[in-house]
């Protein structure tokens, strides 16, 4: 314990050197830990929301965008598709499809997405109600647990939707019938926690599909080429109820989430067949996610390499500072020998300094990583509506700390060996 204290005193005696070493070790450890944490949280979030969905059908465009918008609600949809075209997949009794869930996107409430769908959405994500009842009629809403908590929604709460995903007072559907909250979901850890679920008809009632696509509204600005509903918009609006009565061929939805009964060559070929023979686009979430992980993997890999380089620099810094200090500490080491300490004690003393530096640096790095995730999480939550909790701890972080400590000890090994070999008589004679 005394040697630990002595090592610590030596370290704090050179605050500039100590700070430099800790910054280098902390930065490298923090960067690796942050990459580990972020990757884990992202893949957890993405995998948890797969919900067994085998295929997403929507408008032509980027398949990754279709998946991200339809399943994760973190991108704008590729556009709308006609309900008539989608009916082929939505009707019960399809020989290959077990579940098909329609989604109508385009509106939000205070930045949280309103999703027009039906009861099958609740089944797909195995969602249970914490309070109230499921939606039954148009304009009824079941709120996700997180959105309900953050917006203070309760059973009977009413609100009006806004065009697009950004909260903008000018884009509120003031003239439309308000949505009424009838149920609040239990937390599921899925995307449903941050959604407001309502029957598809609600979206049609608010928007109608008389000449503009409501999914496109998400990327629209108030000054955009698409128009905004209002008393001065220059044409007559049919009553909202009338939209619901519009013929099927005039109605649109945004996408369909599909789960197959079985996976065979027919289901394997279905996306290609849809893409080649219809105006629709079919995308496989598994394939698109793999593509996304591949894209992310390059960035993650680069960050890891960068962290490794910093860690090597940190190791060199420990080595240089300990080795460099040996010359000026030679007399101190000889003094310790004169006072009765053994060469092994000196070896342990220097090794402990390397260990302490690495350990403190590693702890600092982990704290930095969590603080960074907390800050970034706050930003990402505002952007994506996904929570990135900073209190998630991974076993890999312990491994990382262990590796950093071993690294520090290795860097101190040669200086410690040199300290062990200090010639007392020669040093004292030169002194």
């Amino acid at each position, binding site marked *: 314990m*005394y040697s630990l204290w*002595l090592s610590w*005193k*030596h370290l*704090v*005696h050179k605050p500039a050197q100590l700070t430099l070493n800790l910054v280098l070790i902390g930065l490298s450890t923090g960067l690796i830990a942050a990459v580990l944490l972020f990757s884990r949280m992202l893949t957890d979030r993405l995998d948890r929301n797969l919900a067994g969905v085998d295929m997403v059908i929507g408008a032509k465009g980027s398949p990754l965008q279709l998946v991200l918008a339809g399943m994760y609600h973190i991108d704008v949809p590729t556009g709308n598709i006609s309900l008539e075209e989608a009916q082929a997949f939505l009707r019960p009794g399809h020989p290959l499809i077990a579940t098909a869930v329609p989604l109508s996107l385009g509106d939000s409430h205070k930045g949280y997405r309103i999703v027009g769908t039906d009861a099958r959405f609740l089944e797909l994500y195995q969602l249970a109600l914490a309070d109230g009842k499921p939606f039954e009629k148009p304009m009824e809403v079941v709120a996700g647990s997180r959105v309900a908590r953050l917006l203070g929604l309760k059973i009977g709460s009413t609100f009006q939707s806004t065009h697009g995903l950004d909260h903008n007072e000018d884009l509120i559907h003031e003239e439309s019938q308000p949505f009424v909250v009838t149920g609040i979901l239990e937390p599921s850890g899925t995307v449903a926690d941050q959604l407001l679920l309502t029957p598809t008809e609600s979206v049609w009632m608010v928007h109608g599909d008389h000449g503009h696509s409501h999914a496109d509204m998400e990327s629209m600005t108030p000054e955009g080429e698409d128009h905004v509903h209002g008393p001065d918009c220059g044409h007559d609006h049919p009553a909202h109820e009338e939209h619901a009565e519009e013929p099927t061929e005039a109605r649109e939805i945004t996408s369909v989430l599909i789960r197959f009964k079985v996976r065979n060559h027919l289901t394997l070929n279905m996306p290609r067949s849809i893409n080649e023979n219809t105006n629709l686009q079919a995308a496989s979430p598994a394939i698109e996610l793999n593509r996304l992980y591949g894209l992310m993997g390059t960035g993650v890999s680069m960050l890891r390499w960068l962290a490794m380089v910093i860690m090597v620099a940190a190791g060199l810094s420990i080595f240089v500072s300990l080795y460099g200090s040996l010359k000026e500490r030679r*007399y*101190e080491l000889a*003094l*310790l*020998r*004169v*006072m*009765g*300490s*053994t*060469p092994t004690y000196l070896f342990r003393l220097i090794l402990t300094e390397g260990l302490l530096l690495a350990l403190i640096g590693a702890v600092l790095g982990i704290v930095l990583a969590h603080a960074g995730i907390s800050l970034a999480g706050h930003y990402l939550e505002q952007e994506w509506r996904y929570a990135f909790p900073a209190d998630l701890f991974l076993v890999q972080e312990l491994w990382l700390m262990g590796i950093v400590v071993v690294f520090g000890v290795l860097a101190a090994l040669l200086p410690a060996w040199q300290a062990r070999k200090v010639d*007392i*008589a020669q040093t*004292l*004679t030169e*002194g």
Partner: protein
Amino acid sequence: MIETRDLTFSYPGGILLRFPDFRCRPEEQWLIWGESGSGKTTFLHLLAGIRTPASGQVIIRDQDITSLSPRKLDAFRGRHIGLVFQTPHFIDALTIRQNVVLACKMSGHSISQGEVDTWLNRLGIGHRADALPFRCSQGEQQRASIVRALVHRPALLLADEPTSALDDRHCDEVVRLLQEQTRQSRTALVIVTHDQRLRNHFPNALTLTSHVQPLA
């Protein structure tokens, strides 16, 4: 009792130093004289067990330290021998008080805060107890190094040229302190020096001449 018998030391270049036998009773105070190259410092290092003789014995408190294993020799040195150098050196990261405590810890002695303060006050540096060594004057550092060498009450205090760099006033003061404190601690004192000013302060003196011969 401190005693050396037939002590020789060989340098790497094939030079052999032969030392006269030396006996020092407990509480005696000795000067070891010699010109440069006579082997004074080497003799002191042999007494302290930090050099290994080519032959002969160094007996301190009935223990021939040349027969001890390195580990036991380190422990013996820490426990029974104190050293004072021409230029006082300290562990720079520790205060004067912590340096004194360190000497006790290393020698396996326990010491209370009060005892440390008593020692430091006795040598007039109590007010510098919590100062880092580099903030103390040369004189304060030399006094602190005497405290550190004596605080664990060793059998033998070895001082290597403790006054060579000091003016007359400080020279007298250091010699007085060394003599007083070793007497009070019942510690034998051996000073190795070529400083003529010390000649009249010590009744016992051993002069080293160059008993140098090439190795056969």
